[in-house]
Every structure is written in structure tokens, then in C-alpha cells.
């Protein structure tokens, strides 16, 4: 019988509105989680796909020797696409002149991601091509042709082979932010051997490129022999391109954090709504028990209702989630040129699982406790129900919550900080709320009558008020945290790419050309940025011990020839993390390294490093380790020397300038006037980064919006939970002659006070949580957010007051007699 009755009760309770809040909370939980997961999943796939263009692949295995054939065969067996490249620098000779070029020899299926652009003329704009240079030919960067005074069709000697210049290479996907001193030349891999430039000891970079589904890539990585990283580097989008990797990492963390908070809030709403539903049902259960229902019947009855509701809501929510993310992508269609990969199955399962975990952990316990309601309650309503399993259920609920947290956070660190923030602030909140309520009562003693009534209502329900303040405060805290994190995240992204940031880099400018070049720029109305002296050098020994590049990957990295620079002051975008920067005016000779690089090659402060620059040799102490803002598109150096060691005339200069799109036509003139100078345009890269940031920002805002919805639902559920008591109290007050106006005033006072106090608690909690997250998770500098102390209380009052008055309009509109009849003792 209980199934029929369960269905009937479900239908009736739905119509009566008792179940709507529970259903809405559940619906929101599943929709949010599934929606966010679907959205993040698809967006991530799209972003990674796009970002992979910077690597020309999804993964790149790089080394001084060619990665074994067996690996490539393995990768192909796993269904991965593969390509190979060999990179080296070499002199290129025309009939009359010679030029150092950076050669990239590629297999025919290069690039696996992104596209090459070529043109028929050094000064023309490039067009996308799917070809690669045919054997016997090469494609050369515009500067090669301009410097050597050649045209397409001419031949160029590379080592022992003569290759015909077939096209002008205007763009390669994997040039990224690496500044090549020498202009690029692309040739067929099959011609490399003929050049005979790859003698033993030559500086060559071999790479095996891989692309394909993430699962196959993972399987491939798992098959790599142990210790392969002593000889090879494995790069993916994140390690391969630091600025993009950082942006993606942060975005993902933020979206996950948003999902996490939405889950927390939705769970809270489910728990509150279920507790209220259970409290409302206690009388009905007592009646049914009186009429002969056993505990088993009651259990089946409410489990039946819950499961039917759960099943219905799940189906509805999954449909809704699909619609939400589809609509989102439709909105984003203009920004997403990439064909979107279909969403995987994980988000659906995750969403469904979350919904049912929420239901079982937070909605089931109070409903199961209903079976312990004693029938004598029909005679004496004040008899408390004996709850034996309460603590057990609550424990299980908490465990489930922890499980959910970890599942969403995807990292113990993130979940840990959120938990710590919630746990710590909750305990603190409870104590503070108690004090605030006390002070509110004292204040109320001296205030007017509506004030006194409202504040009295708050302190009369002290327990419930503290819980409500905690709930409001927590919801607001999560909202504030997310709002502020969102803006500091967006700010930090924008700061990387400010308007008018240099979009062209100038390399190879020698000290004699410098004034003329500067004049030429100024003549075009372009303001040149500061120039950095640059030369190349290599580390040969550490603490007197000569390094053998073949001994280890670290030694190989250490002895690689690198760009280096010198500077008196610490360059912008650099931060000393260990040691001390030299005195600007009276520098003691020393060396500074980028901190991650130093750690990677095992150098520590105080090591004596032997450096060879041309025919000069320096023995310098490592005095400072720097952290470098790689995500700023500024010239950055792993190695910096104190000034005075190298003369400026030994160097070429690196500078940059901003050229607006409409001025781009002046570039060819510049190139022709200064043929030895190379100008690298990074505006494409900047545009790409900006596009990614714009997309991620929209995703972030959508997440914030969903979390806001969850927060509002929590507030509603929490107000609803004291509804019956309020109805009773205000019904009685109205019966005793309290005017509607006075009671309305009291409600305003009550909710406004609750809002202000919760807002203040939320501001405090958010300040702490944001501090922890910014410094610990997002690697942003710590800062105080004064706006929180304004936003918290204002948001608290407006949200709590609006939702509170809306939810309690029944309190002052239903005739007191009805109220007393239905809710009286």
C-alpha cells in the first residue's frame, strides 16, 4: 500500500509546496554540478585543443638525440598521430652572402596541431597551408630573403646540400614566445642527413610530436621506460607554454572551486529543506502511527517519496544541465572557432552521483528519523521525538560531504583550504554570532518598539538565529570569496596583457644601429621600449668541476648556450626570492638565475659558476635567485649578470614596441632599412591569449551566477525552516492586536539585523579565505579587500531582507485565525 500512498503524498506535497524547496535545491545541485562539469569539460577540451597549437602537438618529447623509433611505433599502435622534427642552427649561404639561420626539419605530417602560414613574397601576408617543404626545397622566414637579398626560387646552401627556396614562411605554430636569434628555415626531414651538419657534438634538438585522445596519451606516457627523463623532456601545453599554462591552471582551479562551492551550498539547501520537510511531517507521522502504521511502513513511505522525487528531479536536472551548457556555448559561439568536442560521460555520472549523494546524505537522515516519532504526539505535540540514529546519519552526511569535496576539488590542497576556511570560520562565527546577538539585544532595549519586537524575535530564537546567521554568513562568504577571486583573477590576467603592451620584439640590433633604428621608429610615431643588451654564453663548470653535457640531462641543460643579459637594477617583472640583488651603483660581480631553472639543474646560492661568453671566461658567485613573471610578454632571462663585466659593445640589443594594427604597413620598410634586425610579431599570440582569457572569464561569470542561485536557495531554505514558528508567533501577536504594519516593521528589523550580522561575518570569513586562496592556490600577491566590509553587510541586508520578506509575506497576510488553527499547539 505504501507505494500508492507514497505517490499520492508526493503529488499532494508537491502541490502543497512542501516539497518544492527540497526539489528545487536538489534540481539546482544536480543541474549546477552537471552543467559546470559539462561546460568545463567541453571548454577545457576546446582550450587545450587550441592551446596545443603552441606546441604543434598535444605532447612533445624532446632530447639531444632522436627519440627511439620504438616509441613512435608504440604511439601509433595506441592510435596517436606522430610527427618528428629536428632543430639546429646553421650558417646558410647564398652566392654572395651568409646568414645564421635556425633550421627546423620536419616530417610531412607536421604540425599535428595549429597551422603553418606561407606567402610567395617576403612582404606579403601569409596564408594557412597544410603542406610541408618537399625534399629538395625549403621555406624561409622573410628576414632570410631580405637579409640575403634573395627571392623565392633562389637556392640556399645548408651544409652540403643546396635547397631551393620554395615559399616564404610567415608563421609556425610552435614559435611561441621563444625568441630565436636566427631567422627560421623549414625543410624536409628526409634532407637532414644530406646536409651533414649533424656531426657528433652538434647542438641539435630532436622532437617526437604526438597528438590524440588524452587516454591514449596517458597510456603512452605510462609505457615510457623509467628514467627516460634523464635524456628527454616531455612537454605538454602547460609545461610547454608557461603563460598559457598558468592561465589555464588558474581558470581550471577557479571553475572547480566554483563547482565545489555550488555543491556545498546546494547540499546545505537540500539539508535545510529536508529537515523542514521532516519537521512538517512529524505530525502526519504521529497520526499515521496512531492509525496503525508501523516504523517499517513509515520508512517505506518516506523512502518511496524520496526516491520517486529523486528520480524525477534527476531526469529533469540532467536535461536542464544539457540545455544550460548548450545555451552557454551558443552564446560563446562567436568566441569559439574550434569545433567543440562532444562532452564525455564523466559529467553526467558526476552530476547524478552528486544529486543522489546529496539526497542520501542530507535529505535521507531527517526523513529516516521520522520513524522514531512517537504516536503520543497526536495528544501532546510538545513531546520531543526520540532520535537514536541522528548522530550516525549526520556523521555519514559529513563523510559524504568530504568525499564530494575531494571529488570536485580534484586536489587535496584545494579541498583542504575550503574545509579549513569553512570549519574555522563556522566555529568562530558561532561564537561571534552569539556575542552580536547579545549586543543586539542590549541595543534593542534602547530602541523603538518595532525594533524591540524584531530584536526580541531574534534573541528569542537564539539557537535558530545563530544557525541562520551561520548559514547566511557561510553562503555569503562563499559568494564574496568567489566574487573577489574572480575579479583579482581577471585583473591579473588583464595585467599580463595590458592595452598597448609591446606586440613586436626586435632582436639583433647592434649598438651602432641602435640610434638609427630608434629614430626610424620615432619617425613613425612609435615609442620604443627600453632595450636590453643581450649576448649568448654557456656555463661550463660549477664550483670548479667541469660539466659533461652527456653525463646527465641537468648537465646538458646547464651547458646549453643561452641568451643572457646584464642589468644594474632588478628588471621589471622579476622578484628576488633568495639571496640579494647587487647594489645598483657599486655592484660586486655576481650572477643571478631564475629560481626554477636553478632548482632544476641543482644550483644553490653561493655556488661558483664558470661562464663562457665568446672568448671571455668569468668565475662568478650565484648571489640571487629570481622569480620571473613568465606570463608577462616581456623579455625575460634565465641568466643575468651584474653590470660592468661585459661591455655593451659585445652585445646586440633586444627591444620591443607597440604597433597598432593600422600601422602594420610600416614594417616592411623597417625590415628593408635594417635587414640584419629581426622583428618578431607577437600580436597573434597576444590576440590568442586575450581570446582565451575572454572565454575563460565568461565561464567564470557563469559559474558565479550558478553559485549565486545556490546561495539564494540556501537563504530561502533557511528562512523557510523557521517559518512555522514565525507563523505561530506572528499569528498570536496579530490576534493580540499587533498591526500588520508593526509586524512588518518587526520582520524588516529582524531580517535586516540578521543580514548585517551575517554580512559582517561573511566579510571576515571571506577575507581569510581569499587570503589563503590567493597566496596558497593561485600564486597571487596577498592583498586586503576593503570592499568586502562594504559589500558583505550591504549584500547581506539586501539579499536577506528581500528573500526574507518575500518568503514570510504569508506571515502577515494569512488571517491570524487560520494561522492559529493550522499551526497552533
Amino acid at each position, binding site marked *: 500500500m505504501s507505494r500508492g500512498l507514497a505517490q499520492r503524498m508526493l503529488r499532494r506535497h508537491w502541490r502543497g509546496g512542501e516539497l518544492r524547496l527540497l526539489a528545487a535545491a536538489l534540481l539546482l545541485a544536480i543541474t549546477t554540478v552537471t552543467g559546470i562539469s559539462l561546460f568545463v569539460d567541453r571548454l577545457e577540451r576546446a582550450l587545450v585543443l587550441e592551446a596545443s597549437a603552441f606546441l604543434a602537438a598535444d605532447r612533445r618529447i624532446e632530447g639531444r638525440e632522436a627519440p627511439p623509433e620504438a616509441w613512435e611505433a608504440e604511439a601509433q599502435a595506441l592510435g596517436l598521430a606522430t610527427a618528428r622534427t629536428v632543430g639546429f642552427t646553421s650558417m646558410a649561404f647564398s652566392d654572395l652572402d651568409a646568414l645564421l639561420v635556425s633550421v627546423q626539419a620536419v616530417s610531412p605530417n607536421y604540425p599535428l596541431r595549429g597551422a603553418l602560414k606561407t606567402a610567395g613574397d617576403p612582404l606579403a601576408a601569409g596564408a594557412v597551408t597544410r603542406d610541408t617543404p618537399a625534399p629538395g626545397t625549403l621555406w624561409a622566414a622573410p628576414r632570410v630573403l631580405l637579409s640575403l637579398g634573395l627571392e623565392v626560387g633562389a637556392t640556399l646552401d645548408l651544409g652540403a646540400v643546396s635547397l631551393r627556396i620554395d615559399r616564404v614562411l610567415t608563421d609556425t605554430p610552435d614559435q611561441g614566445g621563444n625568441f630565436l636569434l636566427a631567422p627560421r628555415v623549414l625543410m624536409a626531414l628526409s634532407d637532414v642527413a644530406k646536409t651533414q651538419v649533424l656531426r657528433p657534438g652538434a647542438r641539435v634538438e630532436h622532437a617526437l610530436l604526438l597528438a590524440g585522445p588524452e587516454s591514449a596519451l596517458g597510456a603512452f606516457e605510462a609505457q615510457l621506460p623509467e628514467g627516460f627523463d634523464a635524456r628527454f623532456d616531455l612537454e605538454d601545453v602547460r609545461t610547454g607554454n608557461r603563460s598559457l599554462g598558468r592561465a589555464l591552471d588558474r581558470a581550471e582551479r577557479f571553475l572547480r572551486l566554483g563547482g565545489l562551492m555550488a555543491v556545498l551550498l546546494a547540499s546545505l539547501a537540500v539539508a535545510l529543506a529536508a529537515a523542514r520537510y521532516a519537521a512538517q511531517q512529524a505530525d*502526519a507521522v504521529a497520526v499515521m*502511527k496512531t*492509525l496503525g502504521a508501523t516504523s517499517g511502513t513509515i520508512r517505506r513511505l518516506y523512502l518511496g517519496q524520496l526516491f520517486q522525487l529523486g528520480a524525477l528531479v534527476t531526469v529533469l536536472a540532467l536535461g536542464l544541465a544539457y540545455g544550460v551548457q548548450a545555451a552557454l556555448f551558443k552564446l560563446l559561439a562567436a568566441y569559439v572557432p574550434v569545433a567543440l568536442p562532444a562532452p564525455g560521460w564523466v559529467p553526467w555520472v558526476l552530476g547524478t552521483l552528486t544529486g543522489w549523494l546529496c539526497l542520501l546524505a542530507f535529505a535521507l537522515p531527517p526523513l529516516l528519523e521520522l520513524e522514531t516519532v512517537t504516536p503520543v504526539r497526536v495528544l501532546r505535540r510538545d513531546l520531543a521525538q526520540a532520535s537514536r540514529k541522528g548522530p550516525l546519519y549526520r556523521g555519514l552526511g559529513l563523510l559524504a560531504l568530504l568525499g564530494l569535496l575531494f571529488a570536485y576539488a580534484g586536489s587535496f590542497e584545494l579541498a583542504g583550504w575550503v574545509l579549513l576556511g569553512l570549519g574555522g570560520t563556522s566555529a568562530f562565527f558561532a561564537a561571534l554570532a552569539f556575542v552580536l546577538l547579545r549586543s543586539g539585544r542590549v541595543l534593542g532595549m534602547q530602541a523603538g518598539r518595532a525594533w524591540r519586537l524584531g530584536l526580541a524575535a531574534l534573541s528569542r530564537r537564539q539557537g535558530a538565529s545563530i544557525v541562520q546567521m551561520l548559514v547566511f554568513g557561510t553562503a555569503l562568504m562563499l559568494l564574496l570569496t568567489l566574487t573577489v577571486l574572480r575579479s583579482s583573477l581577471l585583473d591579473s590576467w588583464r595585467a599580463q596583457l595590458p592595452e598597448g603592451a609591446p606586440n613586436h620584439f626586435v632582436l639583433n640590433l647592434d649598438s651602432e644601429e641602435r640610434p638609427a633604428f630608434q629614430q626610424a621608429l620615432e619617425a613613425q610615431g612609435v615609442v620604443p621600449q627600453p632595450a636590453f643588451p643581450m649576448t649568448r654564453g654557456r656555463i661550463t663548470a660549477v664550483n670548479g668541476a667541469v660539466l659533461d653535457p652527456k653525463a646527465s640531462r641537468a648537465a646538458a641543460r646547464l651547458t646549453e648556450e643561452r641568451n643572457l643579459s646584464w642589468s644594474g637594477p632588478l628588471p621589471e617583472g622579476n622578484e628576488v626570492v633568495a639571496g640579494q640583488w647587487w647594489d645598483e651603483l657599486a655592484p660586486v660581480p655576481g650572477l643571478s638565475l631564475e629560481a626554477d631553472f636553478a632548482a632544476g639543474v641543482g644550483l644553490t646560492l653561493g655556488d661558483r659558476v664558470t661562464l663562457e661568453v665568446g672568448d671571455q671566461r668569468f668565475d662568478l658567485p650565484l648571489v640571487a635567485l629570481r622569480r620571473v613573471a613568465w606570463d608577462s610578454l616581456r623579455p625575460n632571462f634565465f641568466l643575468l649578470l651584474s653590470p660592468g663585466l661585459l661591455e655593451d659593445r659585445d652585445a646586440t640589443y633586444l627591444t620591443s614596441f607597440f604597433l597598432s594594427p593600422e600601422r602594420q604597413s610600416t614594417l616592411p620598410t623597417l625590415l628593408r632599412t635594417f635587414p640584419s634586425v629581426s622583428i618578431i610579431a607577437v600580436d597573434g599570440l597576444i590576440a590568442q591569449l586575450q581570446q582565451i582569457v575572454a572565454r575563460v572569464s565568461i565561464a567564470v561569470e557563469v559559474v558565479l551566477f550558478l553559485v549565486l542561485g545556490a546561495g539564494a536557495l540556501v537563504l530561502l531554505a533557511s528562512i523557510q525552516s523557521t517559518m512555522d514558528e514565525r507563523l505561530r508567533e506572528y499569528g498570536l501577536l496579530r490576534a493580540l492586536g499587533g498591526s500588520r504594519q508593526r509586524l512588518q516593521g518587526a520582520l524588516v528589523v529582524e531580517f535586516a539585523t540578521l543580514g548585517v550580522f551575517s554580512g559582517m561575518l561573511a566579510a571576515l570569513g571571506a577575507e581569510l579565505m581569499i587570503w589563503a586562496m590567493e597566496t596558497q592556490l593561485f600564486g597571487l600577491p596577498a592583498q586586503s579587500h576593503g570592499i568586502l566590509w562594504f559589500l558583505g553587510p550591504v549584500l547581506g541586508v539586501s539579499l536577506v531582507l528581500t528573500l526574507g520578506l518575500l518568503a514570510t509575506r504569508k506571515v502577515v497576510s494569512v488571517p491570524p485565525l487560520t494561522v492559529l488553527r493550522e499551526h497552533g499547539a
Partner: protein
Amino acid sequence: MELDRPVILSAQRLGKRLALGDEQLSILTGIDLEIKAGDSVALVGASGSGKTTLLGLLAGLDTPTEGTVYFAGQPFSSESEDRRAALRAEGIAFVFQNFQLLGALTALENVMIPLELAGRETPEALARSYLERVGLGDRARHTPRQLSGGEQQRVALARAFAAQPKLLFADEPTGNLDQATGQRIADLLFELNAEAETTLVLVTHDPALAARCDRALRVEAGQLHPEQDSTS
């Protein structure tokens, strides 16, 4: 009064104490009671005298701290709560002062609950016939909220008698109604009770209502006394 009718409900040395901090508050002590099938018995007494507590113990809604309640010769009060519920489903019905209808269900569905709990074959037809019997055939689809107090109590009467109980407990059935409505409800209660020959235990502080029962017992300071000025 026929003497060969069996005793359907009895209590021996029944007592109920509540612990209030360190003190024990005695609500009922040494209650002995015997009610024969078909009897109607009024329990009268002032507010707080313990008559509702006694009703709760007799109906198995609560358990005594001492003594035993017997229902149809079987010790009732010592059974588990679920067993007592099952016994109630089979033969005990209630009418309450505040009606105790389930607000979410219609009048018809409210009447159907005990029938479904007892596993009756055609609960809906039976419920409908009882609703018609109390004059609410056309209000079957209405929820309690849409019914007046008198109408709600009629639904409660239909719910009680539809289950065809052996024993009916009524707790101040007219207490929440105006005099005229109360009168009509009382008439209907006694009419249905006579038709079904149900044993009735009625808690009231209305002497006129008590007077319509076969006998009245006064609960006073937790003890049971025969009502001296009973008109029957």
C-alpha cells in the same frame, strides 16, 4: 447491561510518572479499569487531571511506567510500538479534538489511510461510502484546508468508522467546535457508534456529552473515581 459481553479493554494498577530533573512527577497512579465490548465510557475531569494521558496509555500511544493495559484479553501495553501499531490498525480508531487530518491529502484519501494500513481490499469504495454516510460525499476531493471545522470532524468520524474498529477513542471530539456544530457532531458520533456497536472511550469535560455514555469515570489528581452524579 448484559453481563455476558467480553471485556475488551482493561487496565491493572496503571501508573505514569515523568522525570522532571531529580523529581518524579506522578501523573496517574493505581488505575484499575474494565470496559466491556459495546460499552460507552466517558472519562471526565478538569484540565491537567490526566485524562488525556490515560487515553494515550489505554490506546497504546504511550507506555505506562507501571501496570498493564489489556486489549481483547492480551497484554497490550507491554508489546513493542510496532506491534501495538499493528493491533491499532486492526481494531482501534480515534477521533481527536483538533481533527488530526493529514493536510496534504483530500478528505477521501484521509479516510482511506487506515483502510490501506489494515490492508483492506477496496479502500476507496469503502471510504467513499463512509464519506457519504457523514454527508460529505460531494466534498471527497477537498483538502482539510477547504473544509470547516465541523466538516473536518465529519471526515475524522468517517475515517474512524470506515476502519470498522472494535474500539473507538474520542478525545474531546467537540472541543474545537461551536455549540451547534458540536451538538451535530456528537449526534453523528453516537449514531454511528450505535450502528457499528463499537466500544467507545470518550474523553471530555462536557457533562452533557459524558451523560450520553453508558457510564462516566472521573479522573482526579491522577486517580480514577466513578462519576457520582452521572445521569445514566
